[in-house]
């Protein structure tokens, strides 16, 4: 380091560095490519659209990742100190402009391309006739309320909330339209029908998250946030809480069951019967 002679061992260090970068890059890309740990299959059209945007983003970031790490490895190995004098140049404006424009087009273009999927989630409301389900987060359970046969959600009052006596959302029994409301600890929806969630929280911020829907939405106290989806594949899917809500955050867990329409109707009837 003190002399102008090549530094001892610089070839070995340069080679080791370059080999590590190449190996790290190859292993990382392979694990992504082989999808060893991956998304569960999507169950909505929107989910597939989001997956397609993922694929585009993986492609672009993957190319940049490999190019940058390999480029770094190459520069490190090729220009290690072997007694040469460094060449002198302070930059190149043409190249600066080219890569600035290239990244603007690539990155901003990618962002604009992602607009459609986002618009479907949030710019557009639920289709008319959607099944409305009210989702309530509280430490550390989810409750799902259906309007019942009258199609109307009954009144709720905070002072009536009592999980221990079986009224976790505080339904007001004096309101006739609350009598037939169904409150369930799991969410059951019919396949191929639009579902509109009304997401809220009683206490702190939670987040409704179903991987197969590719959706996540915070449940914010004081707000009612709408979200909609149309699941096409019957099955059971885990519902998790994705926003830190206290010591039981990790076990705030429920299930989403997607059923064919007749099964769903039967489930709804059974719930109503249990309600009487």
């Amino acid at each position, binding site marked *: 380091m*003190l002399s*102008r002679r090549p*530094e001892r*061992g*610089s070839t070995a260090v340069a080679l080791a*560095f370059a080999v590590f*970068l190449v190996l*790290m890059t190859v292993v990382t890309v392979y694990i992504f490519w082989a999808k060893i*740990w991956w*998304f569960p299959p999507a169950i909505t059209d929107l989910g597939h659209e*989001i997956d397609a*945007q*993922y694929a585009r*983003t993986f492609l672009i*970031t993957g190319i940049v*990742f490999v190019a*940058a*790490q390999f480029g*770094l490895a190459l520069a*490190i190995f090729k*220009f290690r*100190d072997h007694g040469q*004098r*460094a*060449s002198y*140049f*302070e*930059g*190149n404006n043409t*190249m600066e402009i080219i890569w*600035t424009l290239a990244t*603007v087009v690539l*990155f901003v273009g990618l*962002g*604009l391309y*992602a607009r459609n999927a*986002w618009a479907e989630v*949030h710019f557009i409301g639920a289709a008319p006739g959607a099944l409305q389900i009210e989702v309530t987060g*509280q430490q550390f359970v989810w409750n799902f309320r259906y309007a019942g046969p009258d199609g109307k959600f009954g009144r709720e009052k905070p002072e009536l*909330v009592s999980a221990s006596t079986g009224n976790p959302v*505080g339904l007001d029994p004096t309101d006739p339209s609350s009598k037939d409301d169904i409150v369930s600890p799991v969410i059951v929806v019919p396949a191929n029908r639009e579902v509109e969630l009304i997401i809220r929280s009683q*206490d*702190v*911020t939670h987040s409704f998250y179903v991987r197969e829907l590719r*959706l*996540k*939405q915070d449940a914010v*106290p*004081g707000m009612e*946030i709408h979200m909609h989806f149309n699941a096409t594949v019957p099955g059971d899917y*885990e519902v*998790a809480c*994705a*926003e*830190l*809500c206290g*010591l039981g*955050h*990790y*076990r705030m867990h429920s299930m989403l069951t997607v059923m064919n329409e007749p099964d769903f109707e039967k489930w709804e009837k059974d719930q109503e019967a249990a309600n009487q």
Partner: protein
Amino acid sequence: MVTHENGGGHAHQHQPPSGFIRKYIFSIDHKVIGIQYLLLALFSVFLGMALSLLMRLHLGWPTANFSIFKGGQMTPEQYLALMTMHGTIMVFMVLTTAPQSGFGNYFLPIQIGAADMAFPVLNMLSFWTTFVSLCVMICAFLVSGGAPIGGWTSYPPLSALGEIVGPGQGGGETLWIVGLAIFCGASLMGALNFITTLIDLRAKGMTLGRLPLTCWTWFVTAILGLLAFGVLLAACILLLLDRLAGTSFFIPGGLVVTDQVITWHKGGSPLLWQHLFWFFGHPEVYIAILPGMGVASHLLSTFARKPVFGYRAMVGAVCGIGFLGFCVWGHHMFVSGMSPYSAFAFSILTMTIGVPSAIKTFNWLGTLWGGKIQFNCAMLFALGFVSLFVSGGLSGLFLAQPALDLYLHDGYFVVAHFHLIMGVAAIFGMFAGLYFWFPKMFGRFMNEGIGKLHFWLTFIGVYAIFMPMHFLGLAGNPRRYSEMTAGPFLIALQPVHKFISVMAFITIGAQLIFLYNFIASVFWGKEAKEENPWHATTLEWSIPSPPPFDNFGGIEPVVYHGPYEFSVPGTVDDFIPQHLAPELVKKA
């Protein structure tokens, strides 16, 4: 204020203090204060790592019994308390202090040719205020209920309602907020000092175009700090009022916590906190990483023996990142219930910030290209910084798209992203700076052999820890879970957690090698006899190691050259120090 005259006039009065306390404890010397900040960060980083060690132990083996935990197992609230304090200590006491207040304090005045910071007493005050803030935060562990469990982001209402929503949310959370507010004050004082120093105290000839890139990044970071910490301070005060004075800035009405109706709060908005917090929090990311970029640029040029490729573009990119850093906070809130239209705008702005980041990466490669690269420990860490910056930065392109963030938000993909770029890359910048400047600060070298061992274990280790976290995120693993036992898909990911834990133990163990090297080298390291052992160009290498109290011995240096004149054609040496008069440059 200390006045600087360009030659003649009254030489300013800088007398070295006598007595241990004025010299080393309540010192107004920017170099001592810089080292104090570095030692505070060193203590904090080992504390923060110790906390993560316990967390990884629990995450790797959630059902095993360990005698260090009462009852054999860590409780969820203990886990969350460790997590909250790990994040807080690392972000504020390590990533904010060491690169900026530590190295910046020590080297900004010297690199611009000043005898001290503009406000030396204020400088001392900002360090000791930071120290008080650290003590207050650590006290959170000691109060009943323990440290807060709300994470370093401390979202209300979880952080606002007190003990009723969880242990640690009582006295622990209050201490946390008070500690943070004090820290904001300290950072504001530091930021003012840095900005004034750089604007007012540059030596003759040190034009903005001749500033080393380290100084540019410290300057822009200070501006970010000045604009961001004031907002966090306001947010902390409002949150304290909600907790202690019964106000409702962040708490809406009608809340029910474990069947108990909260009647005394109405009308607040939890999202208000998130906006204020992230208006600070996103620039904070750049506060942590910009100085690392400066150090990396500086070292790549020095040890490739080549000028920085595209100096002006680099300065532009630093300023661009600084400016855009204030326009993108909403990308932390895509799932928060914020307007989806603003989310889209934030998304495009965030994708834009990738552009100056890419410019920097290209220019780093351009700096290496055609060089004569020397592989000492400082350079290895600088090269590692570039690799980590790329790896950590690219995942940001996923998170910046709201449609993709819907899936990844608050999951391990995010944990991987910010640890790589804001944590590990920034720390590599610090290591690079430390190995590089150590001989100047302590008059001795760090041991290169031990340093290389430290580098390799750390470099391989951090990739082995944080790369797999991306895959956990893709599989849907939410973050801030104290165990992965609630559902089948999480249980299936347990082997990955185990692997990460083992890698974390090894990597943290390797930091003990560093600690040994640091301490041993301070006392017994090889002496740095030359002023300029690296054949570097900037002003700190024109004065003795360690520098005297007033840096330049009462003589203000004059600057004749740009900061990175390496391998200039037609000269004998492959570097031209900034202070070397043109007639003294040896021509071939």
